C-alpha cells in the first residue's frame, strides 16, 4: 500500500518535472526570441534612421524637379545671343550644385544609348539615325536620388524600320 502511494507520488513528481521542463524550455525560447527581436529591432532602427535621414529631403526635391523642368524649358527658349542666358544658366547650375549636395543627380543619357527602363521612360518613337530601339532624344531630364531613380529620363526612341 505504502509502496503504491510512493509510486503514485513519484509518478506525479515526474509529471510535474516534465511539465516544468516543458514550460522552462518554452519560456527560455520565448525569452531568447524577445531578446533576438529587440536586437534585430535595434539594428533595423539604425537602418531606418539612416534611410529617413537620406530620404527626408525627397518630397521637397521631388517638387523642385518640376521647377527645374520649367527652368530648362525657359533656358532653351532663350536666344543664344540673349545676354541674360548665361546668367540664368549659372543660376540653374547653382541649383543643380545645391541639389547635388543632397544626393540628387541628373541621369546622364546620350543619343544612341541603349534604352534602359531602370533609368528612362519611353514616351514615343521617331525616325532617326542609329540602332533601332536606342535613344533618339532626351525629352525631359531624369533624376536619381542617392543613386536610385527618382524620376526616369523621358526619351524618344529610334523607330524600328519595319514598323
Amino acid at each position, binding site marked *: 500500500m505504502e509502496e503504491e502511494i510512493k509510486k503514485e507520488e513519484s509518478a506525479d513528481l515526474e509529471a510535474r518535472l516534465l511539465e516544468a521542463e516543458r514550460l522552462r524550455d518554452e519560456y527560455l525560447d*520565448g525569452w531568447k526570441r524577445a531578446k533576438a527581436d529587440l536586437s534585430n529591432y535595434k539594428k533595423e532602427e539604425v537602418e531606418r534612421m539612416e534611410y529617413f535621414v537620406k530620404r527626408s529631403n525627397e518630397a521637397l526635391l521631388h517638387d523642385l524637379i*518640376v521647377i527645374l*523642368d*520649367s527652368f530648362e524649358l525657359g533656358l532653351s527658349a532663350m536666344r543664344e545671343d540673349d545676354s541674360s542666358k548665361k546668367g540664368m544658366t549659372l543660376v540653374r547650375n547653382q541649383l543643380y550644385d545645391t541639389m547635388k549636395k543632397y544626393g540628387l543627380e541628373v541621369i546622364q543619357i546620350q543619343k544612341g544609348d541603349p534604352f534602359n*527602363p531602370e533609368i528612362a*521612360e519611353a514616351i514615343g518613337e521617331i525616325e532617326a539615325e542609329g540602332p*533601332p530601339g536606342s535613344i533618339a532624344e532626351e*525629352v525631359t531630364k531624369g533624376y536619381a536620388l542617392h543613386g536610385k531613380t527618382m524620376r526616369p529620363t*523621358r526619351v524618344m526612341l529610334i523607330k524600328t524600320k519595319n514598323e
Partner: protein
Amino acid sequence: MAKILGIDLGTTNSAMAIVEGGEPRVLENSEGVRTTPSIVAINKSGERLGGLLAKRQGVVNPKNTIYSMKRLIGRKFTDEEVKRDKEWLTYDIRQSEKGGTEIHMGDKWYTPEEISAMVLQKLKADAEAKLGEKIDEAVITVPAYFDDSERQATKNAGEIAGFKVRRILNEPTAAALAYGLNKQKNEKIVVYDFGGGTFDISILEVGDDTVEVKATGGDTHLGGDDFDKRIIEYLVQEYKKQEGIDLSKDTLALQRLKEAAERAKHELSTVTETEINLPYVTSDASGPKHFLMKLTRAKLENLVQDLIDRSIALVKEAVTAPTPKGAGLALSDINEVILVGGQIRMPAIEEAVKNLFGKEPHKGINPDEVVAIGAAVQAGILQGDVKDILLLDVTPLTLSIETLGNVATPMIQKNTTIPTSKTQVFSTAADNQTSVEVHIGQGERPMMQDNKTLARFILDGIPPSPRGVPQVEVTFDIDANGILTVSAKDKASGKEQSVRIEASTSLSKEEVERLKKEAAEHATEDEKKKELIEMRNQAEALVYTAEKSLRDLGDKVTEDMKKDITEKITRLNEVKQGDDKEAIKSASTDLSTALQKIGESLYNKNNGPESSPQPESGNNQ
C-alpha cells in the same frame, strides 16, 4: 516562423503587406514604391520586365506589354466583357483550346494565369529581398464578383509564381478585416471601392465569424483615371480658348499637363483652390507660351459630378434591388460603410456616400493599401494558429515619484511595454536630512496631488549631510503581471526600503480614461503651476547657496555687501511663497547679481591692488 504575404492583385496596380509583431506593414517593391503596376512585358531584346520597368516602355512596345490581366483571368474568350475589352487592349488575344483566353507576348502565347504569375513573381522576389527571408505562402485578394473559375485561375497564378496560396480572399472582406469589422455581430457593411480603373460595390453581412457577400455591383470601366481625363480635357479646352493652341497635339506639353492635373486633383482634396502653373508649356511664332490657370474644388466637382452620381446610383441599386440583382435591403439597414481606392480621397465622393447612408464612412487607412493590409491581417490570422505570439501588456498611465514642491516626476511613462524597470538617483532637499519619503503616484498630471497615490514609504538612516549630497537610488520595476516594486537605496549607507504594489495596472478602463481626460483638460493650468513650483525650487536653491556663502565667506565680505545680500534673501523668501512668478524671477535675479559681487570682491582681494580692475559688465570689448 515563415511569414505569409498578403497580396492585393489589382487590375492596374498591386500592393503587398505582411504582419510583423502583430501589426500589418505594407512592403515597398525593389523600386522603393508601395504599389506596383500590374504590368509585364518582353522587350525587344527578349528580356522579361515586370512592374514599373514594364510600364516605362509600354508606349513604344504596346504589343508586348501586358496589363489589365484581371479583366481576362478565368474568363471564356466568348464572354461579352472579353469581347468588349478586346477592342481597346493593345496586345493580341485569342481563344485557347479550352475556350479560355490566350495572350501574345514576345513570340509565345500565354494564359492569363501565367501572366498574372509573372506579376506575383515580381512581388514575391521584392518581398523576399526586402525581408531577407523566403516567402512561400500567400493570401491573394479578388473582387467579390469573381466566380469559381476566376478564383481558381487566380489561385493557379499564385501557385505558378511559387506560392502556396493559403486563401483567396474577397477584396471587400479584406477591407473589412483591415478595419477590424469582422468581429461585429450581424452587421451589414457596404464597401465602396473606387480604384484607378474599376468601381466595385459589395454588400457584406458579418455573422458569427463569417463574412458573407450579399450582393455586388459596380462598373468595371469607371475609375479615377476618368476623373484625370476630365480635368485634362477641360484644361486643354480652356487653353485653346485663351491662346488658340491645342496642347493635346504636343506630347511633352500633354505629359506635363497630365502630371499637373493629377497634382491639382490631389491638392483639391485638401484645399479649395489651386493654381496650375506650367511655364514654357509651348511656343508659337510670337515666342514662348505659358500655362497659368486657377482650378477650384467646385469646378472640379462640376467636371466629374455625373461620374460621382453614377457611382451613387450603382450603390443604391446594389443595396436595394431585390436579390439576386441586389441585396434587397433598405439603405437604412446598412450599419457600416467602408471607402476603398485612391479616388475616395475626393471630399465630394465622401460627402455623397455620407449623404446616401446618413453615416460617417470608415476611411482612416490609406485607401490604396487597405485591401493589401486586410490580406495581411488574414495571413496573420492563418499564421496565428502556430502559438508563438506572446501578448505583452502596457502600463495604462504614467507612474511617478514626488519630488520637491509636490511635483510628479515620471519614472515609467504611460504605454511602456512591460516587464520593464527604470532607475534614477535623487537627493535631499534640506541640510542634514536623514530620511526621505518616497511617494508613488499614478496619472498624467504634473502635480502629485492631482494623481492617484499608490503607496508611500520612508527611507531613513541617511547620514547627515548638506542638501543635494546624499544619493538615493530609486528603482521602479513592473513585472509581466503588472506588479510594481519600488525600492529606494541610500548609496552611502546601503540602507534599502521597498514596497510592492499589486494593483498598479488594474485600474478599470473607465478610471484610466477619466484620468487621461482630466490630464488633457488641465494641461495648460498644470503647466503654469509646474512652472511656478520649478521657479520656487530654483529660488530656494539660490537662497540656500546665498546663506551658505555668507556663512562660509562671512569674514571676507564687507558689511554693506552682507546687509545687501541678507535683505535680498529676506525679500526672495517673502515672494517665493506667493504666486507672482515675475516677482520671484526679479527677486531671484537681484539676489544672484548680489552674490556675483561676492565672487568679484574675493577675486579682487586675492589678486591684490596691482591686478587690473574688472569692468562691471560687458563693456570691455
